């Protein structure tokens, strides 16, 4: 069962709902621990006072800030006391349309779950779910968690309140210094590019993508356990800039139109039916770089990308 990261209340006008905050993301990363090479024992990190050269328990640690060379120190309690209301309450300030929020602001997703026994607040939670669920509106609010304030968007997902922390507008850099390329594409080129994008558009299905990095890392650990050596795969060469954009657009459109998607190797689903030896033979034919050190799934991936 996931652990609540924060407990407080969601306030909406004069309505208060006690809620607990849970992360909506689970950590599936492959984690490594620090070990002492000599004896394989786990490394522990201990906090030391740099002046006294002795270990310091956590209760004796404060938060320091350098203000023009002068150090100002706070205890955790002092920092928490700065804004007690903001620390305990997610205050809904407005409702906006979800489509108006640029995704660049979205940071971390959480779930808000009602807590407490009392029936009134529980009904208020369900009221919000019902009222907001019938629109594309999201509630905007703010609260402080672990000494940082967050602007949050609360919306309905699967019958629950889903909260996403957002970045503040002044934390997004200006795009002025980013090279935005040429002025304007020629109309013919733009039409071709739009046609190409249309041809390559599918419905969004996130479950279709697996974390190949995670799988490769697990495979490396398994190999290592068996005492095998790990070789870095050869890097594919970065292609140069397209000399003739129009010709490249036409060529790609023709290929998609002529063969459907996939090309050389067929769809990943078809390829997965084949043995690694057969995949490797095809990879030789297609001259896939780094093929000798690829796993079966990597070969499937590489072949399905060859055209």
């Amino acid at each position, binding site marked *: 069962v996931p652990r609540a990261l924060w407990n407080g209340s969601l306030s909406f*006008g004069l*309505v208060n709902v006690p809620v607990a905050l*849970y992360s909506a993301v689970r*950590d599936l990363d492959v*984690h*490594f*621990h*620090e070990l002492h*090479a000599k*004896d394989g*024992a*786990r*490394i522990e990190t201990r*906090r*030391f006072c*740099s002046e006294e050269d002795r270990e*310091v328990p956590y209760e004796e640690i404060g938060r*320091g*800030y350098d203000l023009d060379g002068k150090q*100002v120190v*706070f205890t955790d309690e002092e920092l928490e006391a700065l*804004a007690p*209301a903001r620390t305990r*309450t997610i205050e809904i300030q*407005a*409702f*906006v349309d979800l489509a*108006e*929020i640029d*995704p*660049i*602001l979205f940071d971390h997703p959480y*779930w808000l779950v009602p807590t407490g026994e009392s029936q*009134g*607040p529980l009904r208020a939670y369900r009221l919000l779910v019902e*009222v907001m669920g019938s629109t594309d509106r999201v509630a*905007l609010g703010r609260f402080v968690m672990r000494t940082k*304030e967050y602007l949050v968007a609360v*919306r309905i*997902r699967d019958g629950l309140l889903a909260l996403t922390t957002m970045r503040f507008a*002044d934390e*997004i*850099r200006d795009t002025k*210094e980013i*090279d*935005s*390329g040429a002025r304007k594409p020629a109309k013919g080129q733009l039409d071709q590019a739009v046609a*190409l*994008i249309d041809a390559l*558009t599918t419905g969004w299905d*996130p*479950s279709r993508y*697996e*974390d190949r990095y995670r799988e490769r890392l697990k495979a490396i*650990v398994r190999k*290592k356990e068996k005492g095998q050596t790990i070789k*870095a795969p050869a*890097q594919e060469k970065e292609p140069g*800039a397209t000399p003739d954009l129009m010709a490249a657009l036409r*060529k790609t459109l023709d290929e998609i139109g002529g063969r459907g998607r996939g090309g050389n190797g067929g769809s990943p689903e078809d390829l997965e039916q084949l043995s690694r030896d057969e995949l490797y033979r095809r990879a030789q034919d297609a001259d896939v770089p780094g093929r000798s050190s690829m796993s079966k799934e990597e070969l499937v991936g590489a072949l399905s990308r060859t055209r």
Partner: protein
Amino acid sequence: MAARSLWNGTIVFGAVTVPIKLHAAVESRTVHFHEVHLADGARIEHRRFCSKEEREVPKDEVVRGYEIREGEYVVVDKEEIDAAAGTRSRIIEVEHFVDVEQIDPALYDHPYFLGAGTGGADAYRLLHDAMERTSRAAIGRFTFHNREYLAAIRPYEDVLVLHTLRFADELVAADELELPDAGRQPDEREVKMAAQLVQTLHEDFDPRRYRDEYRELVLKAIEAKAEGKEPPRDTPPARDGSDDLLAALQASLKGT
């Protein structure tokens, strides 16, 4: 002056290549503190200790291990971990395009700006404008610091933004959470009043209207404390903790 780039590479879709430069899009403005020893104000240092020998261990005696069974580790060095990056450290191949609005907000992780790379000014503009016209995002894999990410690339203002995306299996589903018993459904009057309240508080979204007020509060408190004054406090508003939902809704509507 062009901004410094973090990574250079090429977006590939079909026979079209778009050389790009990656830039930071986010600049955190959180007030950062460092750990100090309250007794003497000295800095806290984190030191590595061997749990078996009870002694400090220099960095070069530390290796990384994966716990394969409880208490049993497979040691893997940095080069071996880096080998998991795959073969495309400089290529983002577009697997397909999707409607931006279909991507659930929970999936967006970290954003970066993409600038046009050498020789790619026309192709960059073309990709930007064509995605803008179609409201689409390009989906592909992006390798950064020896780690592969799923990424969505879409137009943002006059440039392209690349978002690393979370994988679907990383998201916690609603049915994995424990909920209190449902109790009585809200009645019609309550629903009507709540809908009215949502309507009254509806506005156009303008992100610049929201400043990090807590950050300002913290900075003021630091200044006050540096001068030996009591830091300012934020007083909590009085809350009606009553169980009467209807009365609270009525009072809220009156207040707007």
